[in-house]
């Protein structure tokens, strides 16, 4: 599943970064390489960009970029950044 399906506070391990050219190399340079553990932090209002934590830094991505990042979900977050849920994923517990 891709990054957009993670919920607040959830962790995921990056499986693959697709896309091409500048966008892809930018994502790689920002530390989004396969094997990296990231945490979903929040999403902007109106289905705007996401914020994730990667290598200790906060990174903001548009959905179009977040879609390029395939993640394997790990455990749920120890804390919720806030109670609101977004992007409820059907079929997930």
């Amino acid at each position, binding site marked *: 599943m891709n990054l957009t399906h993670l919920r607040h506070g959830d962790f995921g391990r990056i499986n693959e970064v697709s896309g091409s050219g500048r966008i892809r190399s930018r994502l790689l340079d920002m530390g989004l390489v396969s094997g990296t553990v990231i945490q979903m932090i929040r999403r902007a209002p109106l289905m*705007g*960009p996401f914020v994730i934590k990667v290598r200790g830094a906060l990174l903001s991505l548009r959905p179009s970029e977040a879609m390029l990042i395939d993640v394997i979900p790990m455990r749920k977050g120890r804390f919720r950044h806030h109670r609101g849920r977004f992007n409820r994923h059907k079929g997930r517990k």
Partner: protein
Amino acid sequence: MAYEKKNKKSINVALAGNPNSGKTSVFNAVTGMKQYVGNWPGVTVEKVIGKREIPGGKLEITDLPGTYSLSPYSPDEKVARDYLLFERPDVVCIVVDASNLERNLYLVAQIVELDLPMVIALNMIDIAHARDIQIEVENLSRLLKAPVIPTIGRAGEGIDELIESILCVANQDFCPPPLDYGSELEKAIIDVEKEISVAPQLISRCHMGRFISAMLLAGDPEITKMVLSASNHTEPIRKHIAKCRMVAEKRLRTDIETALANARHGWASGIYHEVVKNPRHQELTNTDRIDNILSHRILGFPIFAAIMFFIFWATFNVGAYPMGLIEKLFELISNLIDSGLAQIGTPEILISLLVDGAISGAGGVLVFLPNIIILFFFISVLEDVGYMARAAFLMDKVMHKMGLHGKSFIPIIIGFGCTVPAVMATRTLENQEDRLLTILILPFVLCSARIPVFVLFSGTFFAENAGLVMFSMYVLSILTAVFAAKLLKTVLFPGLSTPFVMELPPYHIPSLRGVLLHTWERAWAFVKKAGTIILIGSVFIWALSNLPPGVDYAGEESLAGMIGKLIEPLVVPFGANWQAAVALLFGFVAKEIVVSSFSVLLSSGTGIPLSTSLATVFTPLSAYAFMVFALIYTPCIATVAVIKKETGSWKWTIFSVLFSVSMAFVLATLTYWGGKLLGLG
């Protein structure tokens, strides 16, 4: 003495580092040069050079644009890469954010391979300590084979040691341990390196060849072009590189770019975990706590709106007091000069030049200084705190819908104050097209200089509904900007979608010194740019109004009147006459001059109040159409000058002027004739 001078040498130091690493504050601390410290990713765009005297010579320090990697993504990053690669500074000083060490070491991983004598400034060490991140500095220095100096750029701590280390490494031959990419990649790199010995200047140093080869394997278009152009038989090299790439990718079961990024991040991560014994990646930091409120998906917008509202309230309400004082001061000065010079028998024409030309012109601009200072003070605070990146994050969706970028929002906000610094603020946009688009729509944003025009007109013609009319100008300004953004995006840059990958810097308490410095610089830039240009412009207008000698000031026979008559046909379609044409023409110098032009053209010497004489020239409808035109056409010469400077292109500057003027013409004409059809006048 002469001998000593001859012996003085200058050491070139390049200051490199990630955006938000506090690079600029270290630069300021080293050079003592006043320069802006901010929190926006990519705030330093121009190549800024500072000097520092040292015993027996000097350091010449180049502040490179902040960059995350040496595979350039934006023109700014390319500047940084090219400087390090081809200009070869004597020393590279890498500023790393101690509280964000792992990410920052990724850039170090790449610079290590450039074989430049290197010093690491472990900056913002205080913030790292506050977050309980303990870094073993000596261990880090040993692993990187380079001096590591903890610094606090904002407070100037550690700067002397940093300079000492720079001097120390300047004359050393530096050859750090190469970064191990793993056997498959290493094989491919060595293979390519053999092939490119055709371009010896690129691989003269010990690991440079490795770096170039890695770039070639990753398919960096510019490096590839450069290496190939250095050779006579390009085709075999190209084929060879492609072959190496293919073989390696097959064995690695991933593409070269990923493998290289993986290896470099792996190196950075390895070093990070070696020197930081209590890595904390997952704990809830203060930044997270603040973000839970400020970036909240429901509360975020109202808080943002409240902050913006407060800033505007403060800018215009608090600013009104010093504004009144400045107005009085200029009145006093011109009265003094007027009577003083008259007493000593100065010719009237000279007094008029000074009082009507220079002083009233400069006064007209300086009156806005309090507004500008207050606005910039708050903007600097927000930038320094780290909120601006959050604003971009919150606004990105809306801005994206308009065809702009989240970061376009800040220049637009500044544009409500003054277009000149707003155009300068577009530097934070990484992509050239996004930046150009933002610059082109900024003239439509209602800047404070236009307010006097609207106050005069709405007060004169729509006394009871003046507030509403004023508000309609703001609405129209925003609608025009949105429409123009959509239009330009579709016509000029179809299909453009810049990725929005932005780091959100941790929040920190702003330093008063940094904020004041920044405010002062922007305000001074405004006074200097606007002041000089408007001063010249005012004198020019004065001359046009008084020549040929002996005419009534700005009468029909003066040059100004003749020009007004000449361009009258252009303003007739929206119901204006030659005096309005002159006022609009003078408004090119600065919008507020429109008001003073009217007072000169219509009521000077007659004793009739301006509002009465205006009513003889305009109907309410044509007055509104005139306001629309005044709103939309090019704000001022200073804006034109800054657009030229920031786009570096006359083509776009002229385009911007023509675009605004034609938009203004079309909309004003539509307003006028639309109103006529509706029977409004």
